[in-house]
């Protein structure tokens, strides 16, 4: 069936009789060169006797055809070809599809359903696409029921991004698009309501799920141990009882029974006497339908002391502080140690303390900005208006001058523009806090309070299917037909006609001139 996307341009066909009219005079390309035109002036002239109107210039037909081709091309004719269209199946491979229902995952159920649907339709040109990896495109084979399941990602234990709608550029207009999902993702459902999907296959019935959403540990403030924080959510509509078990390096260290109200979150904080270990794993027992979110693990990074290469020019107070820092070890000259330099100039990585030349206390206090401690102006002795280098970001300063700056480009360098050994400052309790904050800025680690976290978004564990308009969708365009846009062919025809007209005009040019 032929249809027009822009039928307004058909008005251009009215120009065809106009072309005929414009060519109403016969071709006047019969030009004869003469040696002396003045001999022919007494002859009859067209002005006196009038032109004898013969048949129109036959070139009008070619030009009328050219105009018609252009008008039709602008009208964008579309030929819809009947016949089975190719199918692109978009498969929601988000974690909720890993929910076990009847000893099979929702994904397996969905693929079975898809297989039946495609077989029933007799489809042959089918490609399976992954919402999690749109670049993945696998040909469906009727006898390869589960072979292509291996292509789909198995979500890791940790956070996974939600099912993302495919880019519009991948939704080819000349193919049918299907969606296989469990409907648990509200965002995906919203897209499905607007997308040009021909069919939606939804699978999954279970609605209850409990998920571990956060496992964190940080040094305990009470002792040398570790504080553990566990967060879990009951996303179901029923109260459930679960056991939370903690393993440290595969050794069970804690077990507790929890009664979780419906649609409620629960947090558990408990101390672990060991300050250092490898892997902390939290697990809910027994596992529910979605086992993926029933455990979390966090690896505690090595807590070996950070080695520091301290400049000999650094003041005594700073040396004492760094030597007594529980996470530092002075190792002068070590290649991979953190350089700590003191002097007039700064350069290279590490922590640099500039010694002011004309030190004087500040006139105003620097703006209070965590994580820096509050510093009184008379604690800070600095040169008047010390300048920062190119690419320096001010971490702390007054309106007029920087106090602590960060060299943003590699290698990382923090520069202190005031006297770190100033007598008044050294005696303040804020002094070690200041130095620790400087170390944190240069190392990008809170040495004294490192936190290790493993988490996942709560909505990733939402498995309750939401209402979706499934089945065949009549609103989707292009149904089973293929569309063939004819305007490129018409434009090509117009171009050929134009070329032909130009060639004929050049051929028929009067050679007498």
């Amino acid at each position, binding site marked *: 069936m032929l249809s027009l996307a822009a039928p307004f341009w058909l008005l251009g066909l009215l120009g065809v009789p106009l072309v005929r009219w414009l060519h109403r005079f*016969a*071709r*006047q*390309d*019969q*030009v*004869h*060169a*003469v*040696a*002396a*035109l*003045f*001999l*022919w*002036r*007494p*002859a*009859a*002239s*067209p002005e006196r*006797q009038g*032109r*004898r109107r*013969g048949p129109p210039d036959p070139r009008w037909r070619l030009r009328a055809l050219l105009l018609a081709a252009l008008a039709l091309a602008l009208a964008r004719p579309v030929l819809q070809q009947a016949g089975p269209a190719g199918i692109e199946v978009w498969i929601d491979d988000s974690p909720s599809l890993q929910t076990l229902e009847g000893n099979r995952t929702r994904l397996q159920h969905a693929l079975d359903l898809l297989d039946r649907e495609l077989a029933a339709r007799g489809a042959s040109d089918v490609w399976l696409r992954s919402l999690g990896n749109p670049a993945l495109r696998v040909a469906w084979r009727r006898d390869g029921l589960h072979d292509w399941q291996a292509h789909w990602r198995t979500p890791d234990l940790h956070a996974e991004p939600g099912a993302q709608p495919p880019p519009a550029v991948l939704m080819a207009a000349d193919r049918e698009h299907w969606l296989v999902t469990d409907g648990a993702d509200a965002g995906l459902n919203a897209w499905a309501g607007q997308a040009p999907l021909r069919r939606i296959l939804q699978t999954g019935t279970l609605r209850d799920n409990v998920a571990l959403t956060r496992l964190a540990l940080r040094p305990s403030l009470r002792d040398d141990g570790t504080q553990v924080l566990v967060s879990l959510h009951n996303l179901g509509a029923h109260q459930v009882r679960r056991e939370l078990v903690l393993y440290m390096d595969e050794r069970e260290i804690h077990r507790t029974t929890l009664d979780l109200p419906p649609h409620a979150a629960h947090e558990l904080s408990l101390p672990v006497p060991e300050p250092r270990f490898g892997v902390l794993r939290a697990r809910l027992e027994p596992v529910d339908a979605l086992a993926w979110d029933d455990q979390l693990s966090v690896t505690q990074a090595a807590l070996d002391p950070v080695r520091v290469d301290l400049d000999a020019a650094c003041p005594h107070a700073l040396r004492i502080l760094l030597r007594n820092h529980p996470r530092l070890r002075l190792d002068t000259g070590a290649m991979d140690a953190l350089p700590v330099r003191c002097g007039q100039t700064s350069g290279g990585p590490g922590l640099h303390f500039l010694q002011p030349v004309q030190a004087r206390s500040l006139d105003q206090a620097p703006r209070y900005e965590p994580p820096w401690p509050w510093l009184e102006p008379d604690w800070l002795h600095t040169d008047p208006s010390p300048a920062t280098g190119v690419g320096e970001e001010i971490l702390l300063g007054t309106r007029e001058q920087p106090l602590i700056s960060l060299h943003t480009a590699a290698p990382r360098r923090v520069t202190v523009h005031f006297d770190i050994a100033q007598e008044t400052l050294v005696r303040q309790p804020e002094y070690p806090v200041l130095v620790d904050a400087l170390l944190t800025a240069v190392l990008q680690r809170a040495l004294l309070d490192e936190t290790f976290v493993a988490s996942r978004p709560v909505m990733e564990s939402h498995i309750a299917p939401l209402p979706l308009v499934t089945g065949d969708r009549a609103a989707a365009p292009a149904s089973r037909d293929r569309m063939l846009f004819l305007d490129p062919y018409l434009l090509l025809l117009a171009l050929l006609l134009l070329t032909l007209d130009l060639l004929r005009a050049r051929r028929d040019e*009067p050679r*007498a*001139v």
Partner: protein
Amino acid sequence: MPAQPLNHPLDELQEAQLARLARLADPLLAGRHLLGAGHRPHRLRPGQGHEFLDHQEYVPGDDPRKLDWRASARSRRPQLRRYRDEQMADWDLCLDCSASMTLPDPGKWRLALQLTAALGYLLLHLGHRVSLLGFHRDCQLLLPPGRGRPHYARLAQRLRGLAPLPSGGASDPQACTPRLADRNPVLLISDLLSGEDLRPALRRLTASGRSLQLLHLIADGDCRLPAHEGPLELQDIETGERRLLSGGNAVEALAEQAFRQWRERLLHYCAGHDIRYTACPTAGAWKDVLMQHLKGLQPRHA
């Protein structure tokens, strides 16, 4: 200028033929008829005069009364005494090189070249100096004055490499005027199809007493139209002006009438201003046309 074509028109001019023609023309003309008033005798050609020029070996047929016995004794060979001819002149050959010389067929240009070469030979044979000028809208000195057989060779070579304009230009004789020396006799070979009124041009050419001889190339096809259907547009090959005609025999008859009237005016003017006029139909052979001009016996009207 384009390369020499095959079967060049000058190939038909054999020097023996020209020499024979010159001997025929010599007693007819003796140089007097070619000259008009105001010639400038300064040639070295021996002839009738009183000023000694040189000696020339006697050949059978020469006038024995001209033998110089003293020179003959000295050289042990009969020597003729020659005197400077006081009737030689510088001649300017003006050849029309405009685009109209290509129509209606190559015959017009062919005849023009042949007449130019033949006249040049005759003049050089008679001891005159000859220069060649080509004109259309402008005039160009194609060959400076020279004499003798070597100069004819140069003239022929120059003519062989000459071609008319493919389009444009104008058969305007007065274009030659700036390059013509005063009082030099002029031979103009042209179809003269530059405009309806040639009198101003001829007047300028004959100003200051210059002698002018016109060899008017006439082609029957100048008043003919090709077979056609429907309207026909004519374009002047020189001016580019166009005119739409309805065609038919009546148009050609009108053109012929216009041509006759135009030519009659031209003849009348030439007759009244001592301009030697010769009609040169392009259908004729160059020898016949040339002799007709030399005899001056042809009536002024065609």
